[in-house]
């Protein structure tokens, strides 16, 4: 059953230019299955909140249909829809205690006091809120308010849970903890959930599927894996994670993948393609920084490089393990321009003579060693990690 949006468009009068209009959401369709966790991801102002408010009933679509549990709800007000929202600001009622807040929905339904009490207590146990039952909202921390908001939303046993950037007011550590918590609760109760965020890490962690939006339009719908490794277009590839683009022309189309001749003449195989292509088509090949393989061609001349270190440090430094891709001609060659050591990984910007530097990442630098600015390296990738986007779309 779940939630179905059919060609939803929402137009607002422009508050800054009277008479003009803003298209906040344009022609959005998606089918969220029962029990599924779907995240709307996109930059600020792309229409995520508006879409969510259309589902909850706080905005009416200018065009299109909203179906919840197999029922067309376009004309139902929010209090008649079987949805519960967790607000970005939590929206805890400041004049009610924690347990009164949580029991509010049941009280509106006119349930007997005893039922409300037991239900509230049960939820508070699940949410670790029992010892806060009589607190006033202004005596709660951000994380506690967040849990109260979630408890208040799920006690009604809604068929759909809606989240609007629920973690954006929390600090980083708590945010990571809470997103796992939200996922756990959602799995426990099996409630269909629609989640809005601009944080891709959050989206990747919690979602069954991600909807990437930009300027009111859906750019791609897919699992976290598909969104990251098989982006449908340049916007998605660029928005999610960091990326390298290489231009080229399709030379051959096979059952499994294609061959591409890149602008600098080298030919490589590319395992997947966003759309069907033909020989001779222009494509943009996407390769993630961690999929690039680097091998040392020649160390930096002593005393050069942008931040060369002392000799003793250089000796401590282990030379990176040579990649076996060094057998033939590498895909590209370049000089390491910048090194950012992050502990678990090491990031590089490599000058290959192109317009933009090539981005690469190596792992486990303690054991594998890492490169120095000025090192001459060869760069290559495996066909499986390359993905082609037809040009001109």
């Amino acid at each position, binding site marked *: 059953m779940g939630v179905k949006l059919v060609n939803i*468009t929402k137009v607002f009068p422009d508050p800054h230019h009277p008479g003009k209009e803003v298209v906040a959401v344009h022609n959005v369709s998606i089918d969220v299955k029962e029990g599924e966790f779907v995240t709307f991801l996109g930059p600020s102002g792309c229409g995520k909140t508006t879409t969510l408010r259309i589902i909850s009933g706080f905005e009416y679509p200018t065009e299109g249909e909203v179906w919840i549990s197999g029922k067309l709800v376009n004309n139902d007000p929010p*209090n008649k829809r079987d949805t519960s929202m967790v*607000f970005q600001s939590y929206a805890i*009622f400041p*004049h009610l205690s924690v347990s009164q807040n949580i029991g509010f929905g049941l009280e509106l339904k006119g349930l007997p006091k005893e039922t409300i009490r037991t239900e509230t207590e049960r939820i508070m146990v699940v949410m670790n809120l029992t010892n806060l039952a009589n607190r006033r909202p202004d005596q709660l921390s951000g994380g506690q308010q967040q849990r109260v908001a979630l408890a208040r939303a799920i006690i009604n046993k809604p068929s759909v849970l809606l989240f609007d950037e629920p973690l954006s007011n929390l600090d980083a550590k708590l945010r990571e903890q809470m997103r796992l918590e939200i996922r756990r609760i959602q799995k426990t109760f099996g409630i269909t959930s629609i989640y809005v965020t601009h944080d891709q890490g959050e989206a990747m962690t919690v979602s069954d599927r991600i909807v990437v939006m930009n300027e009111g339009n859906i750019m791609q719908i897919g699992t976290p894996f598909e969104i990251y490794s098989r982006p449908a277009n340049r916007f998605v590839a660029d928005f999610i994670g960091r990326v390298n683009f290489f231009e080229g022309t399709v030379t051959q189309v096979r059952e499994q993948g294609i061959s591409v001749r890149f602008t600098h003449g080298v030919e490589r195989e590319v395992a997947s393609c966003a759309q069907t292509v033909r020989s001779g088509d222009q494509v943009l090949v996407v390769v993630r920084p961690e999929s690039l393989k680097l091998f040392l061609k020649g160390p930096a001349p002593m005393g050069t490089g942008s931040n060369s270190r002392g000799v003793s440090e250089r000796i401590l430094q282990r030379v990176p393990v040579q990649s076996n891709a060094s057998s033939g001609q590498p895909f590209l060659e370049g000089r390491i321009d910048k090194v950012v050591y992050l502990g678990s990984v090491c990031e590089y910007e490599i000058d290959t003579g192109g317009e933009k530097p090539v981005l690469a990442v190596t792992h486990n630098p303690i054991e594998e060693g890492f490169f120095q600015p000025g090192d001459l390296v060869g760069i290559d990738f495996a066909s499986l990690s390359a993905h082609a986007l037809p040009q001109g779309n």
Partner: protein
Amino acid sequence: MVPSRSSRWAREIRFLLGDPLLFVVVFLVLSSLVVFILYPLARVVATSFDTPKGFGFSIFLEVLKSKYLLQGFWNSIMMSTLTAIGGSLLGYLFAYTISRTNIPFKKLFHIIAIIPVVSPPFIGAMSIIMLFGNNGLITYSLLGINNYPLYGFRGLLFAQLITFFPIAYITLRGVLESISPTLEDAAMDLGGSRWQVFRKVTLPLSIPGIASAMLVLFIETMADFGNPLILAGSQFPILSVQAYLQITGMFDLPTGSALALLLLVPSVTAYILQKYWVSRKQYITITGKPTTSVIKSVHPVAKWGLFGLCLFVVMLILLVYLTILWGAFANVWGTDNTLTLKHFQYVFGVGFRAVLDTLTISGISTPLSGILGMVIAFLVVRKQFPGKHFMEFTSMLSFAVPGTVIGIGYILAFNSPPLVLTGTLAILLLNFIYRYIPVGIQSGIAILRQIDPAIEEAAIDLGADAKKTFFRVTLPLMVPAFFSGLIFAFVRAMTAISAAIFLVSSHWNLMTVQIMSQVESGRLGAASAFSVILVGLILLAIFVIRAILLYRYGRLGGKLLNI
């Protein structure tokens, strides 16, 4: 690609029709605003152009030809401008001292400074007469001067400053407290001297607030009636008093209306400036967490200088009020100062009708006005409907319209069919209700803007309908604002004079009007006793409402009432 849509207007009308309750409420509120605010004003305008030969300017030409009446206009403008400038300056220095220094007796200074706000605005004038008048305590008893020239410009300016500077003080203290001390710390940290920090950070950030306070003081002084009636004298005519005298003394309604219109124009201009220009410039982003201010940005010399100034002002206020208190117990003020209770016997005997009437009228009109104010605030902040801006503007207009003008408007409008109300309780109630809604609206709007709309949405989301959401969530959150608005409206109703003086009758009278007539007939003792009772009743009401709120809402209620 995007379908064509009907205009916003049409959409709002459709929305209204889809919500019958909202439609009825909006319709009732709008039509009552038209009848009880706009219609009386329209009658004032119409009457002042209604010459014996039909529509024309001849009444205004008469006014302009009369040197005496014209003088009244310029005197009012001058007095209001000077009070605006002087009162705001004094208010700012006072506010700066209270919020930025650690002088002793801060709390006490604060309380004394707001006494004039919760008392009848003509107390200043009364007290001046008692101190410097013909039988004045200082002039006659102490110095032996008999005819000290205190009527006119000097005495009135002093009375107006004492009466209205506290309003500037309250506004500007709010402004100064909303400027984070961190900004001043940062400026000092960057190497600014204390004086530079004040001149380059604190002062520029306060300018919009100061401008706003000046305009408010200008409006209040223009409208003030009690002080000039007592103090202005014939050498220094003031417009509001002239309008009153034209109508009650000479029964010349057209000239009175024309003068009222002359009074209305500068006030409404100042109001529009305040609302649409100055308030736009307010720096609203300067909030953030209230940092504990480490008071160090004021040089000790400046600090003690400011302390001296505040002490002087506070002493003057005390002098004014203690004089009244003494006067209430003195046998014959100035000549026989032995203590007696006879003035109170008078108030509780012959004068008690006025006390009961005042309490009845204020007691009924204030809650009604408060509820209407909350409803309008709710509609304006949370709902979309045609006529919304009109509703907001009209309901807030009472704030700018001098009482004299609206009083004249009411006798013009409700003295003939369809609505004959003169002499009744109803005309006083209606006048008070619509005159004091801005107080409720302002506190209602302020609190609604603080209540995240998501809180109401959360209730709806959990299954509450519009009515339940309003009564279970919005209203409980607005109650503290309702009561704090109620206090101010009550104070204003209890101390009202300028409009009410046209509307009282032998059946319904007010303490303020009684006080005025006692002053005019030279019975300062009875006037003082009335004033003491009046202020006492107001303080009692504030105390009771505060206690209820503190009991009910704890810290929150107390904070909201921290006037």
